[in-house]
């Protein structure tokens, strides 16, 4: 296998907080990477699983804030096969020390805090990524392509419209006919298909280390803007087009839409490729119980739910209860939401442990889903 070759060894670095500001509701008490998705997962599950499925077993998470729920979710990393003697999961919270006294602002500052760790690793390559997307990517193919092409940096992109929510937080790539990146644009607002950067980068570990040292000398903080953009003439940065399934969370609306999109066609099969399972924390829920009188259609329902009422076009996370006479339409109900007797909800996003009390009616619209924050009672 490719990844057993010593030159093909890769370590992962994930930034769980990037673009937190786009979904203030969902990250009130969690990091972007800990946002629940698709009934029983969190965004981090997709990235970690993609990495471990490609044989990457040394992964560092550079958290910035609100990382408690993420740490609770990940534990020792065992569920992703990352509780390992060598490498495994390495969660790095911000650390105030002599040279870094405030929480970092950019990727390069964050990386500076693990410089010595990086220097001590043995992997030849680094796969560096944010965590605002649910995807199931074959990283083996990316690693192979990076090695074959001789690129200094490989940047993954998709050809897509720039989501409304991401107008103020995106990079797009312009490439020449050979695939070499000639220009990186920031906060691109153009309509139509663009080469939308997925913030997944691959390079040699030694190169990243020298970039970190360089940036620290020059007081630079940002990887794309300050490391790549000014150096495109000397750095061979190449684009790697990804055509697989991507759910990009750019705001609350896209969070809702991307959950809903899993109900269409075979999207679920694309995201949950049987050869590359997505792992997550187990909760030991019982199977979902449909009680007599339940009416359910076109919905994705995780284990541990009890359904006595009506559910249509909805995503139910683990442990949701829909009581007798209650109606749930076009909703995303996160774990342990309870919809009591005869309540009627539509176009609703509930966070964890929300209670919709008996007989209450609440509805948003398809363009404006109503959000109920964690542990609130309506």
């Amino acid at each position: 296998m490719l990844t057993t070759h010593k030159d093909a060894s890769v370590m992962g670095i994930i930034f769980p907080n990037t673009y937190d500001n786009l979904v203030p509701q969902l990250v009130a008490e969690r990091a972007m990477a800990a946002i629940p998705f698709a009934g029983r997962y969190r965004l981090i599950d997709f990235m970690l699983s993609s990495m471990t499925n490609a044989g990457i077993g040394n992964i560092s998470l550079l958290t910035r804030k609100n990382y408690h729920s993420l740490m609770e979710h990940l534990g020792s990393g065992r569920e992703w096969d990352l509780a390992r003697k060598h490498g495994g999961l390495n969660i790095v919270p911000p650390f105030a020390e002599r040279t870094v006294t405030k929480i970092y602002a950019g990727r390069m500052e964050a990386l500076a805090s693990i410089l010595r760790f990086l220097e001590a690793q043995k992997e030849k390559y680094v796969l560096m990524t944010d965590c605002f997307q649910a995807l199931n990517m074959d990283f083996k193919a990316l690693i192979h392509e990076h090695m074959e092409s001789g690129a200094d940096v490989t940047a993954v992109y998709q050809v897509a419209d720039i989501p409304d929510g991401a107008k103020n937080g995106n990079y797009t790539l312009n490439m020449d006919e050979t695939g070499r990146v000639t220009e990186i644009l920031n906060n691109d607002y153009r309509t139509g298909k663009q080469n939308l950067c997925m913030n997944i980068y691959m390079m040699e570990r030694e190169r990243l280390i020298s970039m970190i040292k360089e940036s620290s000398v020059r007081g630079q903080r940002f990887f794309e803007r300050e490391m790549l953009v000014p150096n495109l003439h000397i750095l061979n940065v190449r684009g790697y087009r990804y055509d697989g399934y991507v759910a990009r969370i750019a705001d609350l609306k896209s969070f809702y839409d991307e959950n809903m999109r899993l109900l269409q066609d075979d999207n679920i099969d694309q995201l949950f490729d049987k050869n590359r399972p997505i792992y997550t924390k187990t909760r030991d829920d019982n199977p979902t119980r449909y009680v007599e009188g339940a009416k359910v259609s076109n919905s994705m329902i995780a284990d541990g739910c009890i359904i006595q009422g009506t559910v249509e076009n909805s995503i139910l996370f683990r442990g949701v209860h829909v009581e007798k006479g209650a109606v749930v339409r076009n909703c995303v109900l996160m774990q342990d939401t309870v919809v009591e007797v005869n309540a009627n909800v539509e176009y609703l996003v509930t966070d964890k442990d929300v209670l919709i009390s008996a007989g209450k009616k609440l509805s948003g619209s398809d363009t404006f889903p109503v959000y109920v924050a964690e542990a609130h009672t309506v």
Partner: protein
Amino acid sequence: MSKEMVAMILAGGQGSRLYALTQKTAKPAVSFGGKYRIIDFPISNCVNSNIDTVGICTQYQPLQLNEYIGNGQPWDLDRLYGGVHVLPPYQKANGSDWYKGTANAIYQNIAFIERYKPEYVIILSGDQICKQDYADFLQFHKEKNAEFSVAVMEVPWEEASRFGLMVTDDTDAITEFQEKPKNPKSNLASMGIYIFNWDILKKYLEEDEADPNSENDFGNNIIPNLLSDKRRMYAYRFDGYWKDVGTIGSLWEANMEVLDPEHSGMNLFDENWTIYSRNPGLPAHMAGKKSCIDNSLITNGCEINGTVKHSVLSAGVVVEEGAVVLDAVIMSGTVIKSGAVVQRCIIADNCVVEENAAVGAAEGEIAHTAAGVTIGRSAAVKAGAKVYDDVKEGEEVC
């Protein structure tokens, strides 16, 4: 270091009355209640009762069971000292032997138990569906200053003669043991769950082994020997849900009872008594636009587009549009294709029921299949049928 009580689960039986279901797997590894295996119940009971050292005696078709138990992590039994251990018979310096009987299975593992220097040993059965607090049982055993205690259930008098019965005095001390008697003197049936003081158990196991006429069985040998020696023996009454799922009928029935926890008492939704299991890691299930699901348990990974009523579906079951599943137990990965009707039956893992096939009937015995078989297009598997192999297109199986 020592452990107060070690649990030993007898999981070596073939389960021959489960016919095709246990052709290639041991009975304790058979699926139950959507996402569990039978053995999850005794193991989870141990963990919930603070017993962290569990030996599982296996010998028949142990592959799946071994893999399923693994290092015991799903039950929180991956421990530095103790934890769960699968114990097959093994070769010894002076020869080797299969487990000759229930008592012999424990006898052959005396060395395992001794490693933990326990005061008590609880003997459990790997083929029962039951939620029981063994800590409470142990408390009883200690309070009675017993040397041996057996968990018993009151059964209807008219059925009593089918069971091993404990005749007790008004202090619950056992005065007599009747194995399936014609004229029962008691209606307290043994559940096959025993607590022994370890020194007593060890002594009786060794004596039993030395007796060439013994069947090496707890019910037939050890317990009668204890009685004749007038040991301090007590019956611990249990009145919760308990089911021996040794037959196709009782396994099906127990699954159906899970669907009705309000009446049956088998509640898998009990937050204070979680039943743990190994997670297959599949996405949430999909109830499609054409699905009609009523009074059923559906597990992760299922895709339902047909009709499912009063049924239990394990992980990754596919029910296509136009298929009907009624009063059925469908194990993981099985596909029920369009137009097929599946009724009052147990279909094992990874089977395919092709278009317009019919399995089971509204009345009569419960039909069942082995794992991995294909029921051909328009084939008919009648009530009570045992399907070991593929059924060809249009074929009828009785």
